[in-house]
């Protein structure tokens, strides 16, 4: 790669690059995102490499291992360009057939194309697949086009054009104006207007300022930022460099959680490439502006997603938050003014600069502009990553994009916002999703986790799960959070154990009020949300646990009772073999006995029985 000495040089290089690329060249893009990688995308890509070689197609067909293609439920996915044929659940064994039929003879491999989980309608091309219809990819747009490790790929798609535009045609003030006018709000969860934050930092009097990218995606059930860092790392860097120019910072940090080693690898490579080409370093594109980026790896603490805790962690301390104000924009890293934005926010910046603030502000709802990436997971048929305009309804996301639930299951709730969010019941399915609407029903946008729950999930158990998580992750600095989560957990455990009382609900609500009003940081302030929203919308479930000592979803073990129906039991002994505590006894070919005293209610017998003789209530 050349070092770009000027904007003209970059322009010229990009033109040559684009001219040298044939838009009709056949390409095989093997998804290597968070969903496909564990399902064997490396092996599929290797099979393609071998098969293309065998058929003399090296050089004629381009093979790329790209970022997340979205529909994780159908891993491993392979996209054939330029036709955009989306093959699904591809294994290495399918590869010779794809090469022979599609790449050599232009025919479809019918058995590998998309089939709707409910209607069984088939679709071969990406544009016809319901999962992709209704999406509006801005942040995810390049993920199924580029090789994340190729700067040329990024440049060919207009990469670093926004940086060029900012450095040559816009003053720092104008950059901040554009971000402000775009209406972009922080995608990490808080939803604070990004432009306003930048303005405060720009106006802070200091020669030293910092930019931080928060890649500590800790919400369980969320993997949007991982997909962006792994699949389009240069977009994050470009956003940060523009941010540095706007506020006058010379150094940036990307804080990535240690569970994401591939994100660290791709970001490091992108940083090296950007330095080599002069997008990072001294005198970037001869503008006189200096900026560099370092990676700081997280060490496994959820609270470090909170900005002041994250800053403490970069400084080398334990991740304890500090009270705000002062906000990091005034006094942050090493006490200097610091802008901290999340991965998705940074990835939006180049697009806003390129396309203009009005373009961005025209997307979305009145107070929430642009799109939002959600990780749609749980009891929904088509799990994966979706990017939709703000204001899309939950129903559209779950039932149209997500393809609904299994026919034998009923929708119960959508959980948004991770441990700080709440459970949204069926009555709000037509709610247009934005920052304010989610807050109005007791949840939050959060970073974009969207977990669908059906009738086999128990909301009391879900509340306990999140409180247990937060109790574990509370840093322990302030009393309301440390003790509040502990006591909420204790009460929920009592309810689940069948020792609940109705007063417990009032007590929990009081505890929640105290925590929300007096905790130091967002973790403690929002910790009550899972409890509050479930008590509000699913009070009946709590009462069933408390009054009737029943868990209708059959989740809370102490309230379950397993029995063996002597009429249907064939005495096959499958359950006996599975039972870890020897609670099931009896002779072969005769009905078995289950000792209630010994039973630990693990449910293994229930799963092992092929005759539905094991009953649970």
């Amino acid at each position, binding site marked *: 790669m050349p070092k770009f000495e000027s904007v003209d040089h970059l322009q010229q290089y990009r033109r040559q690059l684009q001219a040298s690329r044939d838009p009709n060249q056949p390409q095989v893009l093997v998804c290597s995102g968070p969903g496909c990688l564990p399902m064997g995308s490396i092996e599929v890509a290797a099979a393609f490499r071998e098969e293309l070689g065998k058929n003399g197609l090296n050089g004629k067909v381009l093979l790329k291992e790209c970022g997340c293609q979205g529909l994780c439920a159908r891993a491993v996915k392979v996209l054939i360009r330029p036709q955009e044929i989306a093959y699904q659940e591809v294994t290495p064994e399918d590869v010779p057939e794809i090469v022979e039929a599609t790449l050599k003879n232009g025919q479809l491999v019918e058995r590998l194309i998309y089939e709707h989980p409910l209607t069984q309608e088939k679709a071969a091309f990406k544009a016809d697949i319901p999962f992709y219809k209704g999406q509006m990819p801005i942040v995810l747009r390049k993920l199924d086009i580029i090789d994340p490790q190729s700067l040329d790929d990024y440049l060919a798609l207009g990469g670093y054009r926004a940086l060029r535009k900012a450095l040559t045609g816009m003053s720092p003030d104008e950059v901040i104006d554009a971000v402000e006018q775009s209406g972009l709000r922080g995608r990490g969860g808080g939803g604070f207007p990004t432009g306003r934050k930048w303005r405060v930092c720009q106006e802070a009097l200091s020669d030293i300022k910092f930019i931080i990218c928060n890649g500590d995606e800790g919400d369980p059930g969320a993997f949007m930022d991982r997909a962006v860092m792994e699949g389009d790392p240069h977009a994050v860097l470009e956003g940060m460099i523009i941010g540095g120019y706007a506020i006058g910072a010379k150094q940036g940090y990307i804080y990535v959680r*240690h569970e994401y080693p591939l994100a660290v690898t791709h970001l490091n490579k992108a940083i090296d490439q950007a330095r080599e080409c002069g997008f990072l370093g001294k005198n970037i594109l001869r503008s006189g502006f200096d900026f560099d980026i370092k990676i700081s790896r997280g*060490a496994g603490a959820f609270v470090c997603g909170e900005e002041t805790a994250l800053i403490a962690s970069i400084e080398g301390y334990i991740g304890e938050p500090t009270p705000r104000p002062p906000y990091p924009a005034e006094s942050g890293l090493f006490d200097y003014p610091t802008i901290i934005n999340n991965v998705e926010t940074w990835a939006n910046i180049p697009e806003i600069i390129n396309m203009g603030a009005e373009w961005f502000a025209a997307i979305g709802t009145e107070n929430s502009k642009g799109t939002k990436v959600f990780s749609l997971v749980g009891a929904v048929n088509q799990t994966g990553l979706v990017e939709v305009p703000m204001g899309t309804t939950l129903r559209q996301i779950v039932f149209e994009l997500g393809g609904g639930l299994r026919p034998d299951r009923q929708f119960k709730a959508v959980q948004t916002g991770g441990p700080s969010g709440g459970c949204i019941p069926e009555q709000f399915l037509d709610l247009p999703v934005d920052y304010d609407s989610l807050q109005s029903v007791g949840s939050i946008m959060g970073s974009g986790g969207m977990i669908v729950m059906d009738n086999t999930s128990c909301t009391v158990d879900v509340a306990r799960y999140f409180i247990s998580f937060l109790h574990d992750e509370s840093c322990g600095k302030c009393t309301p959070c440390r003790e509040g989560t502990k006591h909420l957990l204790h009460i929920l455990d009592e309810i689940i154990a069948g020792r609940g009382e109705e007063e417990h609900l009032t007590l929990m609500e009081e505890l929640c009020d105290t925590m929300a009003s007096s905790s130091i940081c967002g973790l403690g302030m929002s910790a009550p949300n899972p409890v509050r929203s479930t008590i509000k919308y699913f009070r009946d479930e709590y009462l069933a646990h408390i009054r009737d000592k029943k868990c209708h979803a059959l989740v809370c073990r102490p309230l379950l009772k397993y029995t063996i129906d002597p009429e249907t039991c064939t005495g096959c002994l499958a359950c006996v073999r599975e039972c870890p505590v020897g609670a099931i006894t009896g002779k072969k070919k005769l009905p078995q006995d289950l000792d209630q005293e010994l039973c630990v209610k693990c449910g293994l017998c229930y799963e092992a029985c092929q005759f539905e003789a094991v009953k649970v209530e």
Partner: protein
Amino acid sequence: MKKSQKTIESILAGYPRHPQNLIGLLQDVQAEYNYISPEHLALICDHVGAPLTQAWSVATFYKSFSLEPRGEHEIKVCLGTTCHLKGGNRLVETCERDLGVARGQTTEDLRFTLDTVNCLGSCALAPVVMVDEDYLGGANIRSLKKRLSKLE
């Protein structure tokens, strides 16, 4: 566990002497040796100029550090929200029974360490178990047992 290749001295040499580098050094030592021994902790403190109390608080605060030797094989059962809803807890129990070790613990012969993690970011494949570097997606008790038996 990979064989230790880098010496502690060469790891230290890669970082300037500044307390800001405490966490990075701990991470590198953890990655290389699979745990942080008292001797290494002291050497790191000397190098970055941080008191042992700070290093101790950091090493015990963050989940990725271990002050005890870890097993040859690491099994991480994901208990993120989706994995929880899809029965991750039963997978932990299966591991506990099969390996004879409680969650968060290492077997006496240092062969296995069983851990739970908050989210591996592979939620679309829940429930997920990581056995060393391999992911087991859409895991059930049968497939997990099969995978574990390959480790013996």
